[in-house]
């Protein structure tokens, strides 16, 4: 199981998320200051930023809905049962906001 969790595809997603976050936060490499070309009226660097954002959004959607590494509804009842069991064992009834 650990092997599956650590697959290179999973790590590739995480690396891609951070690289794309960097590009969405900071347009280094988008070109020099000053006049720039435009695509459909929008400056080249702004189009590039929107493209990075679109790719990141698509990757996030794929990761969350089309890969085995994110949680899903089928697992929820089992997870809740395990978590509630450990609370009763270790700490008594949950404190939380009950």
């Amino acid at each position: 199981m650990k092997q599956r969790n650590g697959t290179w595809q999973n790590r590739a997603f995480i690396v891609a998320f951070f690289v794309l976050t960097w590009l969405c936060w900071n347009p280094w490499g988008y070109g020099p200051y000053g006049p720039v070309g435009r695509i459909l009226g929008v400056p080249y660097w702004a189009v590039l930023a929107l493209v990075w954002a679109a790719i990141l959004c698509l990757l996030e959607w794929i990761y969350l809905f089309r890969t085995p590494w994110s949680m899903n509804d089928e697992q929820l009842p089992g997870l809740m049962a395990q978590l509630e069991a450990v609370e009763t064992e270790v700490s008594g009834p949950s404190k939380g906001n009950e």
Partner: protein
Amino acid sequence: MYALAIITAICLASVLVSYVAFRRGFTHSADDYFVAGSSLGYFVLISSLLASFVSAFAMFGMAGLGYRTGFGALFVLTVNLVPLGFLWYFIHRKTFLLGKARKWRSMGAPFGDRYGDGMRVMIPLVVLVASIPYLVAQIQGIGVMIEVMTENMVSYRAGLFFVPVFIALYLIMGGMKGVAWVNTAQGLFFTFMVFVLFYAVMSKNGGFVPTMDLVYQKHPELFQLGAGQGRVWTYPMLFGFASAMCLGAVCFPQPYMHAYSSRTVKGFKAMVVAFGAICVVVISMTTMIGIGARSLALAQDPALSDVVSPIDADKVYGLAASETLPYWVAALAVAGGFTAAMTTVNGMVFGHATNIANDLYRLVRPEASARELVRFGRLCIAGILAVCVAIAWNPNTPVAELAVIAFGISAVTIFPLWGAYFWKRATRHGAIAATAVGVGMNIMFLGLGGNAMVLFPQAFLFNLNGFLASFLVAGVVFFGVSLATRLGATEQRSLAFFFHPSLDPGPHCKPEQSR
């Protein structure tokens, strides 16, 4: 008169929606009232989360910022928020799961269970104090909008009473379910009106590309990075804005409230991934409405040509609507901005009331019944709104200056939050010290140099802005102090459930099930 009728209709419709939630019995227990009985579906979750974040600033402010500074404004509230999809998922996955298992309802609950009562009290208080100016700015905006829209028929101060009374009424009645439904209805309305205004502004000069060509001929600097001889939208400036807004959004009350309220995993995932995408579409449009407005007749006004003050630029959204739409549609477009301010107030006030009731009041009165908690939560809603109206009484109170620190201060709590979920060595001493130092530094920078020192790169801070410097120092303090101190009994006990193997994404994943 027409504008007053629109505002009154919006308020009455919101109260009606909330009343339906109340009548259908969605506010009986504390769980129902504070977290909607964890029953919200993904459509309401997405709409409500979006609406509670999109404020008057995202409408009027972003149009004004686009008008003044051009396309660099896209890094303030649009492309920079897309990473929230995975940041919220990874960080708040445990908020969602443990929240369900441990019946959490408030922001302080995870901190309290992990670090003890010190952090349970500190976190809601820090976020409350940081966001009061932000809330007051929304209420001031509502007062000003009502005065302008009704052409002084309703004064600023009468407007301050008029709308918050309605807000208090529907928040008190409908609870989280009512908040989510009202936010959804108001969010759909203002999103639709942004589309209408975008289309109208771009159509005025023959479409999007011809409009941008016209603007480019007159103001090529709006299309540049480092314009104004390297003063506007430099790389460090963009990074400072983009990261502050995004990291601050991770730690606001809204993602906690909506994680607790989600019925399904699918709803939670859809909410986090859709938020950034919708922000890119909707807020890019408001920004480009501002840029496109440079091609309209309003740009000939002396106050709106060449160097434009932020206050004058905030009027661009309404002026563009007046110039490009029939009167009654223009009034609806401006009312869209008005509802954006209302939804932010809804989300923030309800979140804070939930935190005060469940984190602070329960600490003082642990024996409080569910009915008593709900009653106290309702009192808190009225109290918070009353305080905000009192501060907003003078329209010249400079809260907008302070509003920017809400995101910066909230962001420093990301280290204790991350440590609670992912680092077994995190201690309460580290969490408290990091929060205190991060908040203190933000306040110090604001006191020394105002907004500029918090938001703009400073040479003496190695070209970081005050927010990023505070953020990094808070991180160093968190790790340093945690490593230097021992885990207390609360931290030791909390490891059993915060790091339970079932929470590890690996062991319980079954690829064949998730497809």
